[in-house]
């Protein structure tokens, strides 16, 4: 209790130091995804240096890659793909998962059973394998990746939202609403949704991390973002040959993936807490 720094108490919220640090790292990558390429010291596609896998220098802040391109600029560009694709996928996955989950809980009966079994079946397919097969069949493009990742992570989001909604659905205020004669849509949107948003947002963050890792994994296998564009996973793959030379080109994108995923994870563990005593 003593190691907690009071955060923005003006909003009636409190956050500890770890949470604030994680939030700052996350914001940094979010901003980089938006304006990174504008800040890049060199055009990401241009060969700057004749020395490949070059070391850190004043000219090339994180060294050069296997073709002599500036790895720092390429990471800034990669942020856009990694963060953008993952964010798109996680939003679709959580939106469809939550909508289906709340509906299943509110309607119940055979609708709930059928939907749950179907999504369980989907969930039982190993995600990497599923990704490999789909990308091999239809080819890799950004829309395909977003939809693929969303489909893979929808069943988990559904399970989570349904479990929360079933609990909320058993409360007396739902019984009151039903006795009042409210329609299912009203019960879902006005009575259940406000009570599950907190945990659902935490789940969204966690799922985002999984998606970043899966996307990086697919790119590493060469099935994700295709050259000349590159997300962080592809950057690791491209520069794998630099490993024996201890090239910063292979370490830096790994570090980017780790910093983003770990900070999102830490933020979820240290979400701001509403201060209940506000007198």
């Amino acid at each position: 209790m003593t190691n907690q720094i009071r955060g923005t108490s003006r909003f009636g919220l409190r956050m500890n130091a770890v949470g604030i640090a994680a939030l700052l790292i996350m914001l940094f990558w979010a901003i980089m995804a938006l304006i990174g390429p504008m800040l890049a010291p060199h055009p990401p596609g241009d060969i700057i240096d004749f020395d490949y896998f070059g070391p850190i220098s004043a000219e090339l802040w994180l060294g050069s890659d296997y073709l002599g391109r500036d790895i720092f600029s390429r990471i800034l560009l990669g942020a856009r793909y990694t963060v953008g694709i993952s964010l798109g996928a996680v939003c679709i996955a959580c939106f469809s998962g939550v909508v289906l989950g709340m509906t299943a809980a509110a309607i119940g009966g055979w609708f709930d059973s059928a939907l749950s079994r179907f999504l369980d079946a989907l969930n039982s397919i190993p995600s990497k394998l599923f990704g490999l097969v789909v990308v091999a069949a239809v080819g890799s493009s950004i829309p395909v990746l977003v939809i693929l990742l969303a489909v893979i992570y929808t069943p988990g989001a559904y399970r989570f939202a349904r479990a929360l909604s079933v609990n909320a659905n058993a409360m007396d205020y739902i019984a009151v609403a039903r006795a009042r004669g409210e329609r299912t849509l009203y019960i879902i949107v006005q009575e259940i949704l406000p009570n599950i948003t907190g945990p659902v947002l935490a789940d969204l963050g966690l799922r985002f991390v999984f998606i970043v890792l899966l996307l990086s994994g697919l790119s590493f296998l060469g099935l994700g973002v295709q050259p000349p564009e590159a997300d962080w996973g592809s950057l690791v793959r491209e520069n794998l040959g630099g490993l024996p030379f201890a090239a910063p080109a292979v370490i830096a994108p790994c570090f980017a993936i780790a910093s983003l995923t770990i900070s999102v994870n830490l933020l979820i563990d240290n979400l701001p807490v509403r201060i209940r005593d506000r007198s």
Partner: protein
Amino acid sequence: MMRQPLIEIRDLEVEARTDAGRTIRIIKGISLSVAPGEILALIGESGSGKTTTALTLMGYTRPGCAITGGAVLLDGRDILTMSEQERRRLRGTEIAYVPQSAAAAFNPARRLIDQVVEVADIHKLMPRDEARSRAMALFRTLALPDPDRIGERYPHQVSGGQLQRLAAAMALIGGPRLMIFDEPTTALDVTTQIEVLRAFKDVLRQDAMAGVYVSHDLAVVAQIADRIAVLKDGAVQEEGLTEDILYRPSHAYTRELLAAFEPVAYAATTPAAAAKTTPRRPPVLEVKGILAGYGPRDRAGLPGKTVLLDVSCQVERGRNLGIIGESGSGKSTLARVMAGLLSPARGQVLLDGRELEPLAANRRKEELRRMQIVFQLADTALNPARSVDDILSRPLTFYHGMSGAARETRVRDLLDMVKLPVALRHRMPGELSGGQKQRVNLARALAAEPDVILCDEITSALDTVVAAAILELLKELQRELRLSYVFISHDLSTVQAICDDVMVMRHGERVELLANAALPHGARHPYSRLLFASVPRLDPGWLDSLPIEITQADRDNPISETSS
């Protein structure tokens, strides 16, 4: 009276830190003492600090609280200055604690006997076999059925009242000199409560043990305590011998507590209405031959577990029907059937003589509007994520199509009607007190402008003084709005205060229907008599004067003992 006290609290101060870093004084300089063999009761409403005080007797505070001043002396040694290890040695051997919810205090995965003898194991007091035989002796003293074998069962295999006595056995096994009881009978039915109280009293008397009994119920405390300390806002308001507190209270708050306990004089709210109904209108609400239950239906359409068997009753306009019974009697299920939340297997619900659809979803909006339901636990009946304003506005929009300024005015009126300040409308339910929540709950039902309000144990979770105020409010609203209430309760005095007719239920069947004037002595059915006789009275000799068969009634009928 100048005996050396067994335990003494001197100028105790307990503080808590809120999450905003503010310090709140919970206990403000309390001094109390308990002599050997004496039972002291701590009484007060929720939040008065009675449990916090009782826990400090073991040198314990709940997380977030800290003892900031004073001393707790056991035989002259200060518990508060001891090391945690020394304190641990005292707990269970010198001082033992019986919690309010025995169900939460037992590990559901282990046999009862193993949990009861655990204290002896921890303190290495005696060999296991000896501890087991001692436990069985305690089971016998506590009047538990089948004392030699009950310990082999698991917690879910015994009833609530039995579990509470087993929790006492767990506390007694270490042979403590001081027992702390924290509201041990609050969650039990009245008929069960008697038996548990009697068992506790016998055990304490037999071993001349000292006790601290925490409760909010003066009548219960009157049966068991030698002295009573009345607590409010973390300070002792009045302390004295039980008789003095009951018959010669000096403090205003004590008088208020006693007044809230007095049965409220019943007056028919619409005495003229009964006479005027010569061209007889059908009753405003009627149920006929309801058979209902839970679980999957079988081929004949009967539910897996039947809760209601052929129940019929009716409510005349402007009059109130009380439904009384113990937990498991089916009274709440009946309310759910009336409200259309549970479809009955057989039977009809009629509003003004017209049959209603079994499920609310199929009833017409106008029919739904005329019958509203108010639940027991305002905590779960109000959506925690919506403001009071939203909660009250919804039925106005839904039933009356109101919006904008008209709706806002109406919300103000409603808050005014239930005597809540208008400023409260921006608050979330979590920021209201229990009594305030129940008023909002009631205001939401009133927003529909109903003819009938189904009140399901609405005062049971409230403090006596607050509950009395809610009852008063209900009566006042009835005079103004010509409402009818279906008032479900397990508490006779509540029902008696407000209902014109009272239906006694047991095991899903109607036992008896009584007019208010016939309460409680006009009851003919033995079960009604037992139920009414089990309500504790504000008379210290009441428990001892009861015929023994009343306290043994649940032997033949273990179902009535299951607590909710």
